[in-house]
């Protein structure tokens, strides 16, 4: 007898439909599964057998063949457990194929028959062919986001069997519980003094310009970086859905009402491998940290401690806004549009940029700075020196501006960018710059001077214009870019890693 059930499995952040066919026939008891299952999939046999037993159904002592179609797609994970169990029940005659009907089944089985949630529920649900999907309660809220499917949240295998046999009605989707209030983001009001660093944070958040903070240890670079999520606007619907898909597929926690609204903040440790950062792995091609940071912030603390190979792997995603992960079996394209924020000491002792302050040997300093390639450093449009707060700053009475008004300004600039057809000013294509960021004569003259002096390249020129556009937007100054906007953009972009020791008298 044959049982056929629809299900799905995950590749990257996309679900692919899987047809589970179970064939039971007379012969020596055996269990064979075909269709490129991975280890977790192969172990389904033991989980299903125990779950069936806990539900009061004996494992058939017959020859069982499970086929997971299509045969060329690698089946990953434990989400097919429920479908295999249901198809097996159909094949043994315990339930009828009509009972299954048009429904698809997703879920991992515990040995006691309870249904456990699956990663990537929303991605899988998207790929399912049927009109209705049966899946664990904890994954139901996510699947419900799609809106076009009937969702039946179920708690255990016995419940599923009862519904299939017609003894119970299929449970309807319930309103998901409101998520508990999330703890407040760290607030800018805690940052004392440091006006330039705060301003750079605002420009980075408003325009999506990548930010590099340089300075000695204890200057507060990490503290500043963690304040960025608090000034970014909540995710728009389309972005929220994409972020939810990525986080779900990566196995990261998703709020109980299903949708992620807060811009993500990912801060991988500098020991992270290239795969954990970029995504991949041999089987499921899981999204990495850079995809989890899409529409949010990727914070790399101690940038120089990251392996150069890992940093090199970031260059292309920074350019394209996506990462292509290729393996022998498949290639997936994962989103990777994030705001990159990094912090580092300019040299091993930390005081490298201050003239006369660095105590490192020439060799140590050059070796340290060589870990970061020029092309990677070039990606940072904002490079600011963050100095240690002074005693007056720390004990002074003046508190900094809180995050709320800053967030309003940032949101207003993001709105302006949307009006120009992009998500943020950093994404403005070069060809529209003349139209949306026209220069006054004074601004053009200043740029020409800097170009002639060799302090700016052609690509740098376009980047400076984009940053100047954000600066003008923040100041509420209208369409024209004036020389003080350009001057500020240039100042915020100085090269903090010249490679040579602090102030040497140059030849001539």
């Amino acid at each position, binding site marked *: 007898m044959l049982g056929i059930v629809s299900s799905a499995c995950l590749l990257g952040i996309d679900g692919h439909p899987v047809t589970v066919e179970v064939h039971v026939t007379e012969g020596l008891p055996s269990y064979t599964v075909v269709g490129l299952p991975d280890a977790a999939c192969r172990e389904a046999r033991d989980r299903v057998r125990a779950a069936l037993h806990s539900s009061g159904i004996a494992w058939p002592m017959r020859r069982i063949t499970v086929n997971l179609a299509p045969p060329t797609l690698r089946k990953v994970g434990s989400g097919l457990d429920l479908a295999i169990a249901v198809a097996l029940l159909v094949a043994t005659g315990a339930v009828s194929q009509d009972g299954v009907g048009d429904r698809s089944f997703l879920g991992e089985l515990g040995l006691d028959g309870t249904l456990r949630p699956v990663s990537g529920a929303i991605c899988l649900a998207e790929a399912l062919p049927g009109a209705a999907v049966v899946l664990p309660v904890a994954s139901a809220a996510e699947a419900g986001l799609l809106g076009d499917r009937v969702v039946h949240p179920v708690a255990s295998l016995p419940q599923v069997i009862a519904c299939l046999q017609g003894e119970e009605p299929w449970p309807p989707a319930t309103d998901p519980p409101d998520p508990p209030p999330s703890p407040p983001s760290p607030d800018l009001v805690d940052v004392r003094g440091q006006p330039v660093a705060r301003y750079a944070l605002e420009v980075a958040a408003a325009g999506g310009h990548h930010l590099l903070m340089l300075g000695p240890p204890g200057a507060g670079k990490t503290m500043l970086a963690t304040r960025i999520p608090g000034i970014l606007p909540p995710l728009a619907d389309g972005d929220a859905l994409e972020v939810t898909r990525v986080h779900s597929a990566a196995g990261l926690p998703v709020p109980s009402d299903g949708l992620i609204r807060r811009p993500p903040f990912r801060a991988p440790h500098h020991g992270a491998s290239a795969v954990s950062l970029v995504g991949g792995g041999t089987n499921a091609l899981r999204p990495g940290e850079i995809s989890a940071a899409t529409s949010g912030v990727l914070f790399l603390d101690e940038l120089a401690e990251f392996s150069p190979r890992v940093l090199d792997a970031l260059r292309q995603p920074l350019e394209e806004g996506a990462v292509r992960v290729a393996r022998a079996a498949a290639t997936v394209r994962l989103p990777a549009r994030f705001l990159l924020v990094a912090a580092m000491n300019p040299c091993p002792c930390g005081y490298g940029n201050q003239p006369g302050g660095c105590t490192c040997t020439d060799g140590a300093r050059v070796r340290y700075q060589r870990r970061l390639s020029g092309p990677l450093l070039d990606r940072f449009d904002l490079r600011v*020196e963050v100095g240690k707060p002074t005693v007056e700053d720390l004990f002074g009475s003046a508190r900094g501006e809180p995050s709320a008004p800053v967030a309003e300004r940032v949101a207003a600039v993001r709105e302006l960018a949307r009006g120009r057809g992009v998500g943020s000013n950093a994404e403005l294509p070069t060809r529209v710059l003349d139209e949306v960021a026209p220069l006054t004569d004074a601004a053009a003259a*200043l740029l020409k001077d800097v170009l002639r002096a060799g302090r700016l390249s052609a690509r740098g020129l376009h980047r400076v214009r984009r940053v100047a556009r954000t600066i003008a937007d923040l100041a509420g100054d209208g369409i024209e870019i004036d020389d003080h906007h350009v*001057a500020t953009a240039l*100042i915020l972009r100085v090269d903090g890693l*010249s490679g040579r020791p602090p*102030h040497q008298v140059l030849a001539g």
Partner: protein
Amino acid sequence: MTQVDADGRGAAALLAGLPRMGPSRLVWFLDHFDPSDAWAHATSGRSDALGPLVRGSNQSEPRSAVEVRAHLIATWRGLAALDPTEAAAAHAAAGITILLRGDASFPAELEHDVAPPAVLFARGALPLVNVPRVAIVGTRRCTGVGAGFARELGAELTRAGVAVVSGLALGVDGAAHRGVLDATGGPVGVVGSGLDVVYPQRHRPLWHAVAQQGVLLSEAPLGARPSGWRFPARNRLIAALADILVVVESHESGGSMLTVEEAVARDVPVMAVPGSVRSPSSAGTNRLLSEGCHPVRDAADVLVALGLTSRSPQERVDQRPDPGATGRRVLEAFDWQPSTLEHIVVRAGLPVSDVSLTLHRLIAGGWIDADGPWYERVAG
């Protein structure tokens, strides 16, 4: 072209290049032997070939004194095949003069020094007679203000007829030499490596300029690497050649402080340039001042200390464009210390956009120098 090494200079050069041949041992050899005999004795392999006793090695492996002696005797024996005639020819071909104590052109103060050099190698003219000499030294990691001052001092002393001696190191030394070249004078550079081994690499053009327009001196023969121990040895020569030693900027400890000790041992007066108490690169010089060294505020202070009466430096009109009101406010916010954008924004009390534009104008006008994210005022 073969020249007979009649006066033994080739042998002296080879002797100076033997491993572990320090200044005092070389002096012993050339005091007790003629150069050619000294070379023969040193490379003879005899048990007394090393001259005075060898102390234990200071390398990581402890070896007994006997082992060290034996090893060194064998090493020197192995170099016996080197030909003094060829060495003399090589030095001559490279334009290097080999000077022995007793030569007419051997600098007098070095001849009678407490720790004299036995052999000197020189490239360029030797304008060292009857001219007052000032050594200018300082840290490699100096501020822009310090480097600028060293350069100015080098130039003004040269114009006043003083010879300026320094070590061709990065930072203050290089700036001082450049100042002398600015005033079309002859810099005197004392280095720790062979005169054909440019160190540091970054000073290659400066090295050649000093050799061409001034003189390069060393105790090390052709091909000698800039080994660490050669630099304190070189510092004593700088101190020995000077009538006055001026330290422009120094951290708490450093090579310049060693040069100061050598100067004190020779009763050479030491003067120091005062710096900001906040600046780490003036910590050493400020300490020297607190211990009684006279301050150097400008070249006139040095000339007075030398006992030269000279014209006061002319009032030079600042050629730079007027900075304007905002520009002046920003310049005041500098307080003559290296500052970041943040320091200036806070001290000047101006918004970031105004400061940015003003900084650009000041950089273009030559009032400020930018080094990465730090900015420094430039003196007129």
